[in-house]
């Protein structure tokens, strides 16, 4: 892992990065079909390239407030552990290469569970970028739901 390319997306004014290896594609939000009785952060399902994939609202997932989708909203389709899901982010436009030595482990100061969802923190162009651990984000258990789901 020397210089890895990342996709940068924004959520509530913060920049996050996902390893571009995981990202299949990015789409505009069209129509999301709600799935009854699914976890609260699951907005529903969308058809993407003939597959039905769940669309996860990252704001809800991380305990923030929902906002209306607009022209900047993006569905980032990622594939991890044989699962394909869409992550809804406020916007996603950048593609950067972050040198491995620029990535630091997440500081202890960030309390709670969030460090589980981050593999590290990087400084990219004067801005902090949180590097997302996709596998963890997609893992769900009742505990994490209790922690994050605003039921």
């Amino acid at each position, binding site marked *: 892992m020397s210089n890895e390319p990342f996709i940068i997306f924004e959520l509530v004014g913060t920049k996050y990065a996902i390893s571009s290896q995981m990202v299949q594609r990015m789409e505009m939000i069209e129509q999301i*079909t709600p799935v009854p009785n699914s976890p609260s952060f699951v907005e529903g399902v969308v058809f993407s390239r003939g*597959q039905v994939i769940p669309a996860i609202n990252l704001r809800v997932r991380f305990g923030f407030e929902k906002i209306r989708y607009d022209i900047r909203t993006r569905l980032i389709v990622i594939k991890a552990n044989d699962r394909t899901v869409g992550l809804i982010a406020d916007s996603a436009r950048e593609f950067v290469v972050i040198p491995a030595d620029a990535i630091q482990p997440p500081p202890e100061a960030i309390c709670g569970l969030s460090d589980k969802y981050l593999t590290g923190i990087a400084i990219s162009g004067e801005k902090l970028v949180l590097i997302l651990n996709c596998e963890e984000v997609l893992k769900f258990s009742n505990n994490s739901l209790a922690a994050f789901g605003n039921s």
Partner: protein
Amino acid sequence: MTNLFSSFLDDYFAECDEHLMAIRQNLLFVEPYVNQPLLSRSILDKLFGSFHSIKGLSGMVGVNEAEQLAHEMESYLRALRDNKVVLTTEGLDALLSGTKILEEVITAYRIQNPAPDIVPICDRFRTIFTKPEAQEQEQEKSELQEKVELNLPGQSIPTVADTQPKAPKSLKLKPEESIQLAAALEKGNRAWQFEFLPGTEKAARGINVNTVRQRLQSIGQLIHAEPIALENGGIAFDFIVVSNADTDTFADWEKDGISYLPYSEQEIKSQQSTVNSQNEESENGRAGERESGGAEIKSQKSTVKSQKEERESGTTAESPRKAENLDNISPTPPLPHSPAPPLPFTVAPSNVVRVDLARLDELMQMVGELVITRSRLADNLNNLKTILPASHLRTLRETNLTLERQLRDLREGVMRVRMVPIGEIFVRMQFAIRDLVKETQKQVVLEVSGETTEIDKFIVERMMNPLLHLVRNAVSHGLEEQQERVRWGKSPQGKIALRATTVGEMVTIEVEDDGRGVNVEAVTSSAREQESIGADTTLSSETLLDLICASGFSTRKEADLTSGRGVGMTVVKNTVTELGGFLSLDTQVGRGTRFIIQLPLTLAIADALIVSVSGQTFAIPLSSVHEITQVPSADVTLYPTFANASVMGGEWGDKFFKPLRESKWENNEMIAHRGTVLPLIRLARIFNLENEIPGSDAEENLQPTLKKELNTQTNILQSINSQSLLNLVVVGNGFSAAAIVVDRILGQREIVVRPLTDPLVQVTGIAGATELGDGYAVLILDIIALTRAARIKN
């Protein structure tokens, strides 16, 4: 490298599967030839080839046990092919068990289990065919043939009586020929058996089977003609001629290769006795009476096979028939019991491509996307209406229509590629029956029809075990013991029929027996004991089926090897329902039972009813829709809910989800409909949908395509005034029937079914998703889960 090897391994397993399938098929054809002097060479060649290939492949891959066993079996087959040994019942059994073990060895290698022990079976083959020939012949003539456990009466194969000086071949006369013969003999003629050995030298002199036939006809009446295969692989022709000519007339025909013998009276008598009686053992002291038996496999024509035919077809060689025009030879097909149409999977391997099912799935998916893209195109064209000149628009629309047609053809083409003949599993059923016949000491005749019916490969795979279970049930529960059958005035042989037909978009598979029928009394009393029905309920066939398929239900007090644990039928019913099919039952006490399975041709595409509830659109598989009706809302009966009447008890406890409010699932509404009580399913409540007030802007949320559909559909039940009328879709049947309350019915569509694979969106009541051409996902309801949850418990 490892990848290369693993893909090579995949090929190995696939090829072995094919060979094993061909072997099973051909072994069934061989069965009638047991203890016959002549075996169909072509079948032996095929069998030999299959084992040879498995041997070679296994050697390459390094599955030594398979290689060794295939080698033993191949050697035995070679001996059979070269007429060194006669196929005995023992030999056939060894071939069958050997095939089974061979399959086990290969499967064990596939799942990396230790291979089963092949030493005993290999020893069996060695003992069978390493007997010196003398001993073999001894056995041929031994008085005491060991009888097989499963002998069908009236299949005696007469062999040559020892007293004959120069043993004539035993000939198989047709009934009418025997009568002709008897009539001619009564007139004082003598019967002669002539044998002609053709040869190139003789043919050069103009002596061939046709000229010999003319010669024979010149001296008397030619009663019978038959080709005989010789030990050395050659061929001879035997004729029976009734003549009053002097022997001098034909004595010097010897030099032309025509030998003669007086045709014995005794032989004739025995011929007649077997003609006249079907189930009588022929009694005139012929040595070496043989019995062969087992489950007869017939196809297409379900005539009761007379032993006469059995014996005729058993020794008719096929090759000379084509070469020589022996018009007196019975026009029966050369192969006994061979299914009339050749099954498609016997095509030459050279023009067959093996494709992984997953690739076809992908292909199907792409086609589905194309279909959707095309409907978007159609929408866009409609938007151009106002701008484009009419002529341009027309050509565009025509192109679009052509595209639509071509896509439909493409989709059908891809679907056809996935289809396999159902005969593949029917062959396995035949083997299962054969084993059962041995275990149960019952006699079974199996009829198979429609084995060329094609169905999606995936469905075939899934149906294998359920069908096996039904067939086992039919033999062990359905068919009575022989004595009992005779008491009821039935034929001692039980009949089991496997049928398949295509009806529109569905394939119907039937498993029928002519046994005792389902004992309604026993089922009813067991059900009452288990309190699944009320004390005075009478059973419809649907309810009966529901009871039989209920988990843990068995009328048996004790389980045996074949059945009786009460889970099999549950599996049958569940599998059929999961595949979007129907199971029904038709039974008459003392007359028999018929299970009817209706399955969709393919899982990928289904017809669905599109409905809307609270502004959300859902698809209901049409296969589970019984009727669409309207009832006044006043007719709905509410009943008090009981605190612990939860239907969600743990069954749906999914760690991914919030515990559902039980009351949401608890049904407390029902309606009387056609004499039964139906629970109501309110999706709005179950799915937490916003309750729609008719005429509100919920309709505005409908997708544009659907709105169009709303306006164009003519056969839609409009909810005129939802205050007074409820639109109901009645789904499921029997115990599990229920009525789903919908706001609107938007029409019927052919949908491409997509499963919801991610655990995040796998929820109770939703089976999958589809889209109707606008890219917007529409959820497909899981009727089984919904009706199960709605079932009224009290």
